């Protein structure tokens, strides 16, 4: 079997337009727009015309989670926004916990 070496892209360095975000996440464009209006998906810079908005990795992550949650739990927009908000808070808390654990010296045995 032929083995090829593939280069990877940093998720963190993506800058996507809203249609690209919708395509990569598999969300319908209208739903991506609604999630943007509700603040569940945030652009990198707010003060721009909608057509010029750019989205980063956090938005792509949220959009992909939205697509999964919507299809797997049959969530409507309200429930989706709520779930995404809670997931974001969980992720923030987990990151804080990870940092605190790293900063915490291990007990000496």
């Amino acid at each position: 079997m032929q083995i090829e070496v593939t280069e990877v892209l940093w998720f963190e360095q993506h800058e996507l337009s809203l249609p690209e975000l919708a395509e990569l996440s598999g969300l319908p464009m209208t739903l991506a727009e609604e999630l943007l209006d509700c603040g569940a998906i945030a652009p990198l810079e707010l003060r721009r015309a909608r057509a010029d908005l750019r989205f980063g990795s956090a938005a792509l992550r949220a959009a992909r989670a939205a697509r999964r949650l919507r299809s797997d739990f049959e969530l409507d927009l309200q429930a989706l926004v709520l779930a995404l908000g809670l997931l974001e808070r969980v992720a923030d808390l987990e990151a804080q916990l990870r940092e605190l654990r790293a900063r915490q010296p291990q007990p000496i045995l």
Partner: protein
Amino acid sequence: MKYKDYYASLGLERSASEEDVKKAYRRLARKYHPDVSKETGAEEKFKEIAEAYQTLKDPEKRAAYDQLGSHAPGQDFQPPPDWRQQYSESPFSAEDLDLSDLFAHLHAGAGRSGARRSRPGQDFEIAVAITIEQAFQGTQLDLDLNMPEYDAAGRLHRTPHAFKARIPKGATDGQRLRLPGKGGKGLNGGRDGDLYLNISLRPHPLYRATGHDLYLDLPLAPWEAVLGTAVEVPTPGGVVRLKVPPGTQAGRHLRLPNRGLPKPKEGQGDLYAIVQIVVPSVIGDAERDLYQKLSTDSGFDPRAHFATEAGHAN
């Protein structure tokens, strides 16, 4: 093709009603969905549940599934000849196919005559654990994936894909990488799916990572902490000399700038050595005498603040 018992996956009898199927799925999805579950193996378990639900929730697919008969899970079987004619949109080779592929592409009745629509390939997301050393230097991962694909003749197959992904230095815990076009093949001109790698760092005996910063416990003897010293500290990039100033307290973070993990574009995280003051568990007579003398001569009172704080309280 290996048989899967979709009813058992959802914990149901074959006679279960549509409502039962939905309820069982909701209950199990709540428990095992990878976005909300922390159970080990949740992802695999959820895939199994979702696959079963996709087929059983649809009355036509469920009927097609029921007509495959009941076999032991994992047992090799062939769909009956008339089954293919009745349900399958396109020819398939049952040998190297997964049961889920069969039902994902099953369009009983109406779909069969419809024009072939272009469909994007499926995105895949997999978790990979790398060591701190691999994150520091960059690494190459061997990936082995099995994906459903159509061959040139339009027959559906499960095709193994083995390839190497070069992970550049700069990856860290919780980071994701995208391999464009490495997911499932697009259909009728649809774009190929992407492969996402979710990176996690394996626990390391010395370092703890957060972002691109590393933390390391630095044990010091009491006299080293009091008098100050220079110690050799391991870092992923090699040993460095660290000056410990006199009077260094336990818990202090001594920062080694740019000795943490490299960042993707430029720059590097820091390494923090956290001072721990450790005491020997066994001492000889000469050492004991020295500690005795120190105890007598020293005017140091580590608990002086107890008295003043307790005084304030009264």
